[in-house]
């Protein structure tokens, strides 16, 4: 048996899924935060049941990635039973998706989640009446309290039936559906889609297109609007029958603070600043511990083995890569993910997107782009992965370039370790300033030259909720796994390659070849080019390698302040790390990955050269 969970974003689908399967699965609070299907297995009465968590969607009629995926899943018989999860506090709007799903004539049950919240709002839902109207079993649940979650599986496996609801469409639409069914023989939901211009049967689309135009003309309204209105009205009728409201004291609306320009924007800035600050503080403290433990317990014993030079080099590179991965992944990225998941689970992210919309418009993006930008301060790899939130290719392209320029936590380490420590804290901030000016300039230029149309933001505000520790951790854990899965192999391979190059003496050759650039253009020592090369592998390695090559940790004694400053700014701007390039390639294709890399190399060298010339 296969069961699929269907519902709007943020209805608690994933939480129920999580409780049933016991696997760490993320809660989709931000519209479209998971495109991949999450699957899990449970045993019920000695029988294996597979549960699929479909991405949260608002409609089955759209053509977004998620909507198409779910539609294909339903039509191709991906599941035997559909568990429709609905938010009790937003029952009417949620029933809209339910009545669409009912048209697929699959076995269904309805789970009305968040009943606890609905009761607090003074709303009481009559499950019996609702069940008689929908024609499927209805379970009133509250996933956050675990109420009635245990009933879902038995009911889904034992009592699920195809829903008996039929939306009373406008009689012209009904007539059109009938005539299409008669002449072409396609099922109702296919015909409904075809009337709205979707599908891939040219004969059907042709016939439906002509009818749709006729109906549109007659009603002075597009067919999609008529169909949506019919469905919403039907959902409203059902809702009116099943909900009784008792007057309740209205809870204080935090949105009166959060979504206003004042104090909303100061709050937003404070939250983001605190997030980055705490990630940085906790991160560097944990990194210190991890690196120290790793070095003393693994690397030192390894070097003590005194293997043949080639093997020693390879083994050493491998260990360094592991150390780098762990040293970045857990302290910085994981801490950051915890903070981000907290923001998402409280529902604050949608407020942030709303407030940021204006600023983002200036640079050719819109509010939702704040998510990748914020993630970018933690680590570029997940930031690039989150670009799929943006709807158009144009926005993804602009945001991809910007996100790779944002100083991630590793770059912050470079700035702090080189500039703040040896040149001065003010100079460290000036680097941020330079990066932001470049970011805005790049964005303004990109928004002019990138082809494609701009699409505005339409975001449903998630309900503000108290986050739950185990869910936040589970979600962060899932994300860090994804991060390690992408970043680790790249780190290891690159590290070993660089190690081999060093062994074969290729790095000296490289230093000689690029010496004109390093020495003449940037005014840096010859060995700095190797450090920069290592920076491509992992940003803060640039700093560590520099110390190793310079032969002292006190960099101030071997390089001038200008040299240190130039080195820091070049390595911060210069090429995103290999993991970023890999994920850019995976997410947006080779072209964007190459263009972004080349652009940042030139930008880094250019700014480095200017600083060298101006300050020398």
């Amino acid at each position: 048996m296969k069961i699929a969970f269907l519902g709007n974003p943020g209805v608690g689908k994933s939480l129920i899924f999580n409780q049933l399967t016991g696997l760490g699965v993320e809660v989709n609070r931000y519209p479209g935060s998971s495109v991949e299907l999450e699957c899990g297995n449970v045993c019920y009465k000695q029988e294996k049941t597979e549960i699929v968590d479909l991405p949260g969607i608002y409609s089955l009629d759209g053509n977004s990635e998620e909507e198409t995926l779910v539609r294909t899943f339903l039509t191709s018989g991906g599941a035997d039973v559909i568990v429709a999860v609905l938010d009790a506090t937003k029952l009417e709007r949620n029933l809209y998706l339910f009545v669409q799903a009912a048209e697929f004539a699959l076995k269904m049950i309805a789970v009305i989640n968040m009943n606890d919240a609905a009761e607090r709002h003074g709303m009481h839902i009559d499950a019996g009446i609702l069940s008689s109207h929908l024609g499927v079993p209805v379970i009133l649940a509250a996933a956050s309290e675990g109420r009635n979650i245990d009933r879902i599986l038995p009911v889904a496996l034992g009592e699920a039936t195809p829903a008996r609801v039929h939306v009373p469409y406008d009689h012209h639409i009904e007539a059109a559906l009938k005539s299409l069914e008669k002449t072409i023989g396609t099922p109702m939901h296919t015909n409904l889609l075809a009337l709205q211009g979707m599908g891939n049967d040219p004969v059907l689309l042709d016939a439906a297109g002509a009818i749709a135009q006729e109906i549109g003309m007659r009603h002075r309204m597009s067919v999609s609007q008529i169909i949506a209105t019919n469905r919403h009205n039907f959902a409203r009728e059902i809702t009116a029958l099943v909900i009784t409201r008792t007057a309740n004291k209205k809870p204080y609306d935090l949105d009166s603070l959060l979504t206003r320009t004042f104090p909303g924007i100061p709050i937003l800035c404070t939250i983001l600043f605190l997030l980055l600050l705490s990630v940085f503080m906790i991160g560097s403290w944990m990194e210190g511990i991890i690196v120290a433990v790793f070095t003393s317990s693994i690397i030192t014993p390894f070097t003590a083995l005194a293997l043949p030079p080639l093997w020693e080099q390879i083994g050493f590179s491998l260990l360094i890569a592991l150390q780098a991965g762990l040293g970045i992944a857990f302290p910085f990225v994981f801490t950051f993910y915890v903070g981000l998941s907290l923001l998402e689970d409280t529902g604050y992210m949608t407020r942030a997107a709303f407030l940021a919309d204006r600023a983002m418009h200036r640079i050719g993006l819109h509010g939702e782009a704040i998510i990748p930008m914020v993630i970018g301060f933690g680590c570029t790899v997940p930031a690039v992965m989150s670009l799929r939130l943006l709807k158009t290719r144009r926005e993804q392209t602009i945001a991809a370039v910007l996100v790779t320029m944002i100083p991630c936590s590793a770059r912050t380490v470079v700035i702090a370790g080189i500039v703040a420590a040896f040149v001065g804290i003010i100079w460290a901030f000036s680097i941020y300033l330079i990066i932001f000016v470049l970011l805005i300039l790049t964005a303004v230029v990109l928004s002019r030259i990138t082809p494609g149309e701009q699409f505005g933001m339409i975001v449903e505000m998630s309900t503000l909720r108290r986050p739950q520790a185990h869910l936040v951790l589970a979600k962060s854990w899932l994300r860090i796994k994804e991060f390690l899965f992408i970043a680790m192999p790249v780190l290891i391979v690159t590290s070993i390659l660089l190690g081999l190059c060093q062994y074969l003496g290729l790095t000296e050759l490289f230093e000689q070849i690029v010496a004109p650039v390093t020495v003449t253009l940037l005014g840096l020592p010859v060995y700095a080019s190797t450090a920069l090369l290592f920076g491509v592998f992992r940003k803060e390695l640039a700093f560590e390698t520099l110390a190793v090559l310079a032969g002292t940790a006190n960099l101030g004694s071997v390089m001038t302040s200008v040299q240190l400053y130039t080195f820091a700014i070049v390595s911060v701007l210069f090429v995103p790390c290999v993991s970023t390039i890999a994920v850019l390639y995976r997410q947006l294709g080779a072209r964007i990955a190459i263009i972004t890399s080349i652009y940042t190399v030139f930008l880094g060298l250019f700014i480095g050269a200017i600083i060298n010339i101006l300050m020398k």
Partner: protein
Amino acid sequence: MQPSLREDYLEAVQIFSEKNTRFPLTEELAATLLKPVPVVRSEMVELVSSGDVIVSPKGVITLTLQGKQTGTSVMKKHETLQCFLSEILGMDKSSASDEACTLEHAVSDETIDRLGKLMVTREHHNHHGKRKHKKSDDRTCGVETGEFCQSHSISEFSEGDEVIIQCIHGRACAQRLLDLGLVPGECATIKRKLSNGALVVQVKGCDVAVSPEIASAIGVERSP
């Protein structure tokens, strides 16, 4: 009495009363129907007994509520049929009228309703081009219909206003808005409006945040 005869009488009385803003005398009715007065007078007795008309001692024929309903309905049927026969099928006016006189007694209400709608659509269709030139600054309402809707954009309203959604312009953003419940006829409250025109709209108990350019595509009227 034949049902068709009864309907003819009631129709004639209704037409007369609309035209002259008073009810006819028996003689006047006989004259419009080209019938001898004694025949009309005797048949009026039957209509009085069926409760369709009241004849005053002076001979004024007044329609009862029931009679008026039948009379009006037959008159409308006649008009619709005549219009259909002459304007759409292209028959000449007088033969269309004669034909309509026969058909009006047999035709069902639904057929008349549909014929009426058919003609309204065609009329609208024919006038469409002219309207377009006159009001070229109107916003289009639904690209595929090419229709016009003269509602205001939701951006023109301010925080706290309650509005009724009239239409969604454009194609790209329309579907998501419709899915979120912003459908024509739906009540919405503007919960928040930022200075750049970005809105939080509350609809069906859910808050939806939209960019300024999306907001300008939502056509609304102020809620009464």
